[in-house]
C-alpha cells in the first residue's frame, strides 16, 4: 500500500463525523482537565482513560490521542500562567513562560505555545506518516549499549538546566533513579524496597510523585511568605504576537520541531529530553543568553515545539515497536490492550484503518487544538486573577483526586503527601526538581539497558566504549559535565541564574 492510498484509508476513518466529534471532545476535555493546576498530562490521561473504553477501538484511540494533545497544551498553559508544570517536559516551558506571564506577556507566551505546537504537530505528523517504517529501523539498530549511553546523556543534560549546585543536581538524579527502582524487579520478580506493601509492587506511582513534588511542595513554599503574592498580578496586554515576535519565534520553532521529531522517536524519555535539548540549544546560540530565564520568547517557542513534535513522533516506537516512550504512552498501551489490540509491528498491517486513521486524526487534533485555544486564551489567562488563597485549596482537591484515580486507592494520595513534603524539603535545601523527575522517569530504563548490555558483553563494562554511537553519547556527556566544571562556565551560569531568581 503506497503512502497516498494509506493516507486516504486513514482520512476515511479520521474524517468520519463521529471520529471528528470524538477527537474534538478529547481535545476539549484534555485541555479543560489539563489546564487545572496540579493536574498534569499524565494525570489527565489517567483520569480520562476510562471514558474511552466504551467506544470502538478507532474512536477510542483517536479520542485518547486528542485528550493527550489537549492535556499537553493544558499543561503548558498552567506552566506558563502558574509556574505549575504538569510534567518534566513543561518544566522547561515554565522557566521563561512564567517569567513572560509575570511581565504581562502571558497572552503572547500562550499564543507562541499554540502556534509553535501546531507547526510542530503538523510537520511531525507528516514525518510520522512518511517515515514511520524507515525511522523505526534507525531506532531498531540501537541496542542496549546505545540506549544506556543515550539515557546517561539525557540525565547529564538535565543538570545543565539546574539553577544551583551541580553536585546537588547530580545527587537529585541519583535519588530519582533510586526511587524509580522501588517495586518488583522486572527480570526476577523480586520486590525491592516495598516494605511488604503490595501497592508498591508496581513501583511508586508517577502521578503521585510528579504532582507531589511540583504541585503540593509549591503550595508549601508559597505559604512561607504571607505577604502579597507577586505571582497573581499580571495585567494582560495582548493575546497575539507582533510581527517582530513572529520573526523571533520562527527559527526556534523550526529547530525545536527538528529536535523534537528526532528525540521523540527514541523510545525512552526522548519526549522529555527534546524540550530540555531545545532550551539548551536556543540558549547556547542566542546572541544574549542572559535573557533566558527572564522571559525570552525563544525559551517558550523552541521547547514547546520540540515537546509537541516529540509527542507525535513518540507514537512511532509505540506503534512500531510496542515500546512506550514515556508515562502517557504507557497508559496508551493500556488503552490499546483494553481495546483488544496488542501494540507492535503488526498494527500497521493488521489494523491499517486504525493506524492511518490515528495518524490523520493527529493532524486534525492539532488543528482543533489551535481553533479551540486561540480564542479561549483569554479565559485561561483569567485564571491569573484568582486569589491564591482561593486557588490552592482547588489544587489540593484536584491533586488528591488525581492521585486517587490512578490506582483507585488512598495509597496514592498518601504518596502525594509524602512527596509533597520531600519536594518541599529538597527545594528548601537548594536542590532542583527537574533532574530528580528525569532520573525517576528514566531510572528503570537505565537499569534495564545496563543489565542487558552487561549480559551481552559477559560482564565486560568496556562494551560501552566499543560502539561508536555509544562512545559519541558518552563523550558528549563528559563534555557537558566538563564544561559545567569549568570556572568560566560556572560563573556565567551562576550569573544567569541568580539574575533570573530575583
Amino acid at each position, binding site marked *: 500500500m503506497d503512502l497516498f492510498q494509506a493516507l486516504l484509508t486513514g482520512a476515511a476513518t479520521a474524517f468520519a463525523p463521529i471520529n471528528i466529534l470524538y477527537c474534538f471532545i478529547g481535545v476539549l476535555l484534555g485541555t479543560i482537565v489539563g489546564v487545572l493546576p496540579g493536574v498534569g498530562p499524565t494525570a489527565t490521561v489517567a483520569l480520562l482513560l476510562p471514558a474511552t473504553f466504551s467506544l470502538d477501538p478507532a474512536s477510542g484511540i483517536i479520542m485518547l490521542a486528542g485528550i493527550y494533545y489537549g492535556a499537553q497544551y493544558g499543561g503548558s498553559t498552567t506552566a506558563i500562567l502558574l509556574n505549575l508544570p504538569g510534567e518534566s517536559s513543561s518544566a522547561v516551558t515554565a522557566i521563561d513562560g512564567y517569567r513572560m506571564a509575570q511581565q504581562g506577556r502571558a497572552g503572547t507566551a500562550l499564543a507562541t505555545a499554540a502556534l509553535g505546537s501546531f507547526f510542530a504537530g503538523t510537520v511531525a505528523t507528516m514525518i510520522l506518516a512518511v517515515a514511520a517504517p524507515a525511522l523505526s529501523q534507525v531506532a531498531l539498530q540501537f541496542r542496549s549499549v546505545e540506549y544506556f549511553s543515550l539515557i546517561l546523556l539525557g540525565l547529564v543534560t538535565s543538570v545543565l538546566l539546574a539553577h544551583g549546585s551541580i553536585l546537588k543536581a547530580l*545527587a537529585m538524579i541519583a535519588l530519582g533513579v533510586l526511587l524509580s527502582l522501588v517495586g518488583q524487579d522486572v527480570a526476577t520478580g523480586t520486590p525491592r*524496597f516495598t516494605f511488604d506493601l503490595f501497592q508498591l509492587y508496581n513501583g511508586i506511582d508517577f502521578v503521585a510523585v510528579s504532582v507531589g513534588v511540583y504541585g503540593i511542595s509549591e503550595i508549601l513554599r508559597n505559604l512561607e511568605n504571607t505577604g502579597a503574592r507577586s505571582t497573581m498580578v499580571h495585567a494582560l496586554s495582548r493575546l497575539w504576537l507582533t510581527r517582530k515576535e513572529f520573526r523571533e519565534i520562527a527559527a526556534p520553532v523550526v529547530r525545536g520541531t527538528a529536535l523534537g521529531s528526532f528525540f521523540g522517536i527514541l523510545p525512552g524519555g526522548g519526549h522529555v529530553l527534546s524540550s530540555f535539548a531545545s532550551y539548551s540549544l536556543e540558549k547556547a546560540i542566542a546572541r544574549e543568553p542572559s535573557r533566558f530565564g527572564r522571559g525570552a520568547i525563544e525559551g517558550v517557542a523552541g521547547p514547546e515545539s520540540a515537546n509537541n513534535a516529540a509527542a507525535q513522533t513518540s507514537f512511532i516506537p509505540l506503534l512500531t515497536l510496542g515500546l512506550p516512550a514515556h508515562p502517557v504512552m504507557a497508559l496508551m498501551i493500556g488503552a490499546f490492550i483494553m481495546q483488544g489490540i496488542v501494540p507492535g509491528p503488526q498494527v500497521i498491517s493488521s489494523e491499517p484503518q486504525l493506524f492511518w486513521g490515528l495518524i490523520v486524526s493527529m493532524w486534525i487534533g492539532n488543528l482543533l487544538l489551535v481553533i479551540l485555544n486561540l480564542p479561549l486564551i483569554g479565559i485561561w489567562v483569567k485564571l491569573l486573577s484568582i486569589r491564591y488563597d*482561593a486557588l*490552592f485549596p482547588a489544587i489540593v482537591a484536584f491533586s488528591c483526586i488525581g492521585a486517587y484515580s490512578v490506582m483507585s486507592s488512598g495509597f496514592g494520595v498518601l504518596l502525594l503527601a509524602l512527596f509533597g513534603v520531600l519536594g518541599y524539603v529538597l527545594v528548601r535545601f537548594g536542590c532542583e526538581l527537574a533532574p530528580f523527575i528525569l532520573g525517576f522517569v528514566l531510572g528503570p530504563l537505565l537499569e534495564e539497558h545496563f543489565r542487558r548490555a552487561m549480559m551481552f558483553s559477559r560482564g565486560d563494562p568496556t562494551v560501552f566504549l566499543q560502539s561508536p554511537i555509544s562512545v559519541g553519547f558518552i563523550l558528549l556527556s563528559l563534555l557537558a559535565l566538563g564544561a559545567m566544571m569549568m570556572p568560566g562556565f560556572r560563573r556565567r551560569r551562576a550569573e544567569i541564574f541568580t539574575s533570573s531568581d530575583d
Partner: protein
Amino acid sequence: MIRLRSNTLCGLLFLAIALGFGWAAAGYDLGTARRMGPGYFPLLAAAILGLFGLVILGRDLLAAARGAASTSPDEPVPWRRGLLIIGAIVFFAATAAGLGLVPALAVSVLLASRAGANSWRQSLVQAVVLTLMCTVIFQMGLGLKLPLIGPWLAL
C-alpha cells in the same frame, strides 16, 4: 543551640537515604556483573547517591570550619499552614473510600483552605463549590471510581 546548616542537612539527608536503600539493596541477590541480580544496580545507584551526599556534607563542613555563612533560607518553615495542607491530603487518603467523595473532599478542602488567608465564610464557600465541581467533573463526568457517600455513612 547550634543552628544546623542547610547544606549539612542536605548532605546528611542524601547520605541517610543512600544508606537506607544501600542496606536494603545489599540484602537482595546481587548476582554478578554478567548476570545481575535485583540488588546490583540499586546498590550501585545508592553508592553514587551516598558519594554525592558525602561530598556535599564534607564541603559544607569545610566551609563551616572556614567560618563561611550558612546558606539557609530566611523564611521560617510554615509549620501550622503546612500541617493543615498535609493533614488535608492525609485525611482524604484515609477517608475517601470510607466516607465517600463528597464528605471526604469537603472536609479536606475546608482544612486546606484554613491554611490560607481565608475567612471562615470563604473557606465554607470554597468547600461547597469545589466539592460540587469535582463531583460533577470527576465522578459524574469522568467516572471516578469513588462513591458519593461511602459505606461508613450508609444507613
